[in-house]
């Protein structure tokens, strides 16, 4: 063990954690139990310009540039549901709360965050930092539309709050939305207040053999796969019966969400919804996919690394204002196939914004496009 690591362990002794499964080895693992403690960790890291990798459930660590951290900050002990107001339909949760646990709790009163439906070990903070949305975004919008309030620990250890615990608010700049998909570049997302939605009286999954141009008035979610289409319905029993009759196909009660795709490499294709049908026809037959019509997102599972086809698809998407993003891959892939592809417009502005929150650029450095 290096002397640097020993010194760091001594300095962060109060926050040390057991090794974190899946996290890069060799880094000092910490799991602060409070936001004040997390601020201490980041202050220390900032003072010495030590890169910190924030770790939730490890579910979305495959997205973005690789980080070589000196410290891995686990949110495992930031795990309380701080305040749930069922009548106001808001919930305040710390970053490390597992989405599955939160949803189980909220379901007791028929409510949901509309965060991803098959989260595995994914945490509230992780999904927000990665800007991941569930299938139900077709009806309820992406995860950023859940965000009412955020408590951030900036890279240099300041505790700041943006937004508020009300469902409609324009008081001050919208830090909660800025934090969504920020991949830690503003600092640690410590705690959030989320807007909730009621779970419907009836839930049903309709399976169709073929994609259609119209799935009826605003279904909850639609997932097109290679050999079937699933349409998810929500509402009163009367509505669901009527919609099922309109759609045809076969159906099952409840929502049956597909598991995350298997494959060596995970990709996320993001394009304007009108381009979806065309590109699905051209998808290599060995690739599996879950396409979201009306949204423009295609989750792809690739069996073997195929840089040529992947690059061609990326060029196609980027030339039409879209993107092809790596969501999961062996480490070696990232050095030959960039995690993000082309850098977006306004990269300089992004750098200036990030510098105001994390001046020493210590939280997840290099995770965002352009090495930011």
């Amino acid at each position, binding site marked *: 063990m290096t002397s640097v690591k020993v010194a760091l362990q001594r300095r962060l002794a109060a926050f040390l954690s057991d090794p974190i499964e899946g996290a890069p080895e060799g880094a000092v693992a910490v799991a602060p139990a409070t936001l004040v403690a997390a601020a201490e960790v980041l202050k220390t890291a900032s003072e010495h310009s030590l890169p910190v990798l924030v770790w939730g459930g490890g579910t979305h660590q495959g997205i973005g540039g690789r980080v070589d951290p000196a410290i891995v900050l686990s949110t495992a002990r930031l795990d309380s549901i701080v305040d749930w107001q069922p009548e106001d339909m808001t919930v305040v949760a710390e970053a490390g709360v597992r989405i599955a646990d939160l949803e189980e709790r909220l379901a007791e009163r028929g409510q949901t965050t509309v965060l991803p439906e098959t989260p595995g070990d994914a945490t509230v903070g992780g999904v927000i930092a990665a800007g991941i949305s569930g299938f139900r975004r077709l009806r309820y919008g*992406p995860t950023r539309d859940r965000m009412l309030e955020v408590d951030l620990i900036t890279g240099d250890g300041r505790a700041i709050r943006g937004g508020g615990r009300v469902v409609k608010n324009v*008081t001050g700049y919208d830090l909660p939305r800025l934090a969504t998909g920020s991949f830690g570049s503003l600092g640690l997302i410590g705690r959030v207040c989320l807007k909730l939605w009621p779970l419907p009286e009836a839930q049903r999954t309709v399976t169709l053999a073929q994609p259609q141009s119209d799935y009826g008035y605003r279904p909850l979610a639609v997932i097109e796969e290679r050999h079937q289409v699933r349409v998810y319905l929500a509402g009163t029993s009367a509505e669901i*019966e*009527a919609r099922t009759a309109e759609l045809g196909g076969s159906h099952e009660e409840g929502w049956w969400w597909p598991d995350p795709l298997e494959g060596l490499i995970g990709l996320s294709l993001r394009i304007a919804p*009108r381009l979806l049908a065309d590109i699905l026809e051209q998808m290599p037959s060995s690739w599996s996919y879950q396409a979201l019509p009306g949204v423009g997102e295609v989750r792809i599972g690739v069996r073997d690394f195929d840089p040529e086809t992947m690059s061609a698809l990326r060029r196609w998407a980027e030339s039409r204002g879209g993107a092809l993003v790596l969501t999961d891959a062996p480490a070696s892939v990232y050095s030959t196939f960039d995690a993000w592809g082309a850098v977006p417009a306004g990269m300089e502005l992004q750098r*200036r914004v990030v510098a105001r929150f994390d001046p020493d650029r210590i939280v997840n450095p290099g995770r965002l496009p352009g090495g930011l």
Partner: protein
Amino acid sequence: MRVVTFVRELQDLLGEERVLADPLRRHVYGKDGGIRRGDVAVVTLPATVGEVAEIVRIASRHAIPVVPRGAGTGLAGGAVPTSPSLVVSLTRLTEIEVDVESSTAWVGAGVLNLDLSKHTAAFGLHFAPDPSSQAACTIGGNVANNSGGPHCLAEGSTVNHVLAVELVTAAGEVLMLGADAPDPVGLDLRGIVVGSEGTLGIVTRVLVKLTPNPPAARTLLAAFDRVEDAAATVSGIIAEGIVPAALEMMDQPMTIAVERFVGAGFPTDAAAVLLAEVTGHPAAVAAEAELVRAVAESNHATRIRVAADQAERDLLWKGRKAAFGAVAQLAPDYYLHDTVVPRTKLVEVLAQVYDIADRYDLAIMNVFHAGDGNLHPLMAFDASQEGVLDRVHAAADEVARVCVAAGGSLSGEHGIGLEKRDLMPLVFSEADLDAQARLVEAFDPDRLFNPDKVLPTGSRCFDMGRPVPEGIWI
């Protein structure tokens, strides 16, 4: 001399007819829909994004503040210049380009909110945010303030419907933030520009998400003898697991004013009137309307009226949306407040609002987006009476304090502007305000755009003062 050169440069760019510096125009553009007046040096009327960028570069060279402006319907002073400023009126940017297959549209900042929905009606689509001023307010103004409206209960405010913005920066660059593809890579700067009240740059074009027009809708009006019963109905409906398209409430003074104005048959003897709308699949709408009725009845509704047809629906909505116009009949001036509280605190806060109005001897009436706890207390007065403005401002401050104390916030949809800027420390710490000021600095280091808005003076003062490293390497 300097101003003369400055105006000449603008005239060279836009021609004399699109650079207004006469006293009348400078007077007219010095005010928004609120009650403050500012100081305009010159007004420009660009017609292209290129012209906007060039105007910004000229203003930047002469260090003259730039205040972007839409229709001027704002109520928080967001478009009111605090020092002699260059006003950039965006009302000539009126192009609309619809992508029906993706249900999106590129919309010029100067397009009127209602014109957009009229334009897209042929495709069965509309722009969901519907502020009461929608016949007059612009999309650019909606983006600046993250405007809401009655139908934001189910659909969310403007930010939920903005996929990208074209932004002219302080350096006079044109940046495209966001995309028609979902989850654009990198930081979501579009999200921070929406609601930034013209302080981060000038939005010239907006890519909006369009919403399908509902195949069926039903509008109900319920009357109650007690405000508490109306509020309990709102909570009861939400607790049943449905989020109606809109849930609006008016108190008795407001109902009387509205009824006198539109004659829609609103029950003027009720203590509170609830306007509920359910939309969606025909099968859903029938069931949900029944549920709303049942909840209202169980909460002692004295009368329930279901709009029989589209004409009656329109009439009921006209009543609601004309509320502020109706007040003009009662007094020459009004102050329209905008605060938010957790929905469950509505009744308790409303009682305090009445009490505040009594203490300041002001006529107050209330119309609110009850479903999301968004209050709009409205004070009608005659500004020519001595001292009345001071009382109005003092009462407005107290209302804001009461709402914040109940766990609410300063504004739900009108913005902070000048009106509530100095109340920001009620909801944010020094560190919070400093972080917001730093964010503004990243976009606009010289504070060229709409200075003195949103954040109180001195927000950027907080400095952690980095502690001396304790020598962990020793």
